[in-house]
């Protein structure tokens, strides 16, 4: 990886943000600041608004009201923010070609493509599968390739939407190891999950969402040992939030 420039995308600030689709409120007056440091894990039951929050923070969608700023700017380009979706779509070409495509989209000079492709494949443990059609890879391998594709942007912030939701334990472990590796490189990771165990293993900070609102924000140790709200207490103890 190259030396990182200043984190111009951080902090990401969501101020009184709401997102409404056809009179259905998906996010309701959210205030949140994402700062450099350990991974921020957004947890909550299905339908809590986790994915929409990540898309807003990524800049893929605009809030119905309120505002989102990146490093103090509302118009910061998204070229140093990347996202991996819950079900990443592989382009119909080889794993290597998927990475070359992402590098080209990120305006990386073509002379650097081959070395970067090798570097990224090695990073995600797919060095021996570079020539294989991406859609023929297993779910875990596709998820890791999607991570490599996101890293092709050399991002300052990486959003991960339930990155292990459909993976078996072995594949989950390899993806979690990769997330730790990415975070250790100084990339701000913001990920969503409804898996409490995963949140315990990876989170530096926790954001608990329920019904489109942020219920509690805290550092992971405090959140799990001494939750402040009744919803957080119930969620941490494995009770259902409905």
């Amino acid at each position, binding site marked *: 990886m190259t030396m990182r420039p200043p984190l111009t995308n951080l902090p990401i600030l969501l101020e009184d943000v709401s997102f409404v689709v056809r009179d259905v409120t998906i996010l309701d007056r959210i205030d949140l600041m994402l700062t450099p440091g350990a991974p921020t894990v957004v947890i909550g039951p299905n339908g809590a608004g986790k994915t929409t929050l990540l898309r807003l923070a990524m800049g893929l969608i605009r809030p119905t009201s309120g505002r989102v700023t990146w490093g103090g700017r509302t118009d910061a380009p998204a070229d140093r923010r990347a*996202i991996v*979706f819950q079900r990443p*779509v592989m382009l119909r070409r080889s794993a290597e070609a998927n990475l070359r495509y992402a590098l080209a989209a*990120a305006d990386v000079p073509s002379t650097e493509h081959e070395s970067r492709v090798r570097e990224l494949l090695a990073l995600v443990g797919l060095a021996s599968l570079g020539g294989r059609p991406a859609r023929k890879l297993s779910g875990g391998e596709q998820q890791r390739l999607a991570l490599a594709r996101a890293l092709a942007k050399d991002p300052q912030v990486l959003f991960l939407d339930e990155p292990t939701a459909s993976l078996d334990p072995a594949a989950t472990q390899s993806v979690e190891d990769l997330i730790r590796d990415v975070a250790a490189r100084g990339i701000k990771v913001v990920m969503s999950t409804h898996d409490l165990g995963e949140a315990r293993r990876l989170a530096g900070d926790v954001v608990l969402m329920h019904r489109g609102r942020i219920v509690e924000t805290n550092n992971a140790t405090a959140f799990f040992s001494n939750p402040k709200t009744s919803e957080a207490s119930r969620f941490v103890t494995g009770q259902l939030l409905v």
Partner: protein
Amino acid sequence: MPENVSALQLVLAGDPALYAIVRLSLIVSLSAVLLAALVGLPFGAWLALSRFRGREGAIVILNALMGLPPVVVGLLVFLLLSRSGPLGSWGILFTPQAMIVAQTILIAPIIAALARQTIEDLWLEYRDELQAMNVGTLGSVVTLLWDGRFSLLTALLAGFGRAAAEVGAVIIVGGNIDGFTRTMTTAIALETSKGDLPLAIGLGMILIVIVVLVNAAAWGTRRFGERMAG
């Protein structure tokens, strides 16, 4: 054309007149498919990705144009290319070029409409990823056309099938001139009306074989490509 011979004898003997007709038919239809693809694929992709007032109406009209009657297209091109028409100065009426123009107009909407549907489906799948990678509209169109290439083969085949089988447009703008603008379909129509059934049947057999072979080649290409590209 020799007389008192069967259709099979004509085909197997490699009758030069018969194969000249086959050659011209292929040149006209494949040229039309190529030209219509150059117009129809990008237009279909653009329509799939764009959002503007009246888009739904444009899609309905494009789909309706798939059913353009060949004789109407032939008449339109005839009026355009006739000496007193706006494109009369081109001087290509009753030439193979005129037939290519007519067939291009006939099949471009077919290719565009089928491409629009294919690309729109693929866009729904790819949109988030391409937007997350900051790929612009033009880059997205190119990506979707490339990744949808095997499905788009079906659109080209539909266009080829229509071009190879139609008779109304090419007979109006080509004139069915022996040795110059006579195609398989116009020859079949003419020879049947004259009662020369062996030649008509021979041409019919070749036409069907060609259509089957082209479809088989496209199918094989698609399966091979899908296996290699995933």
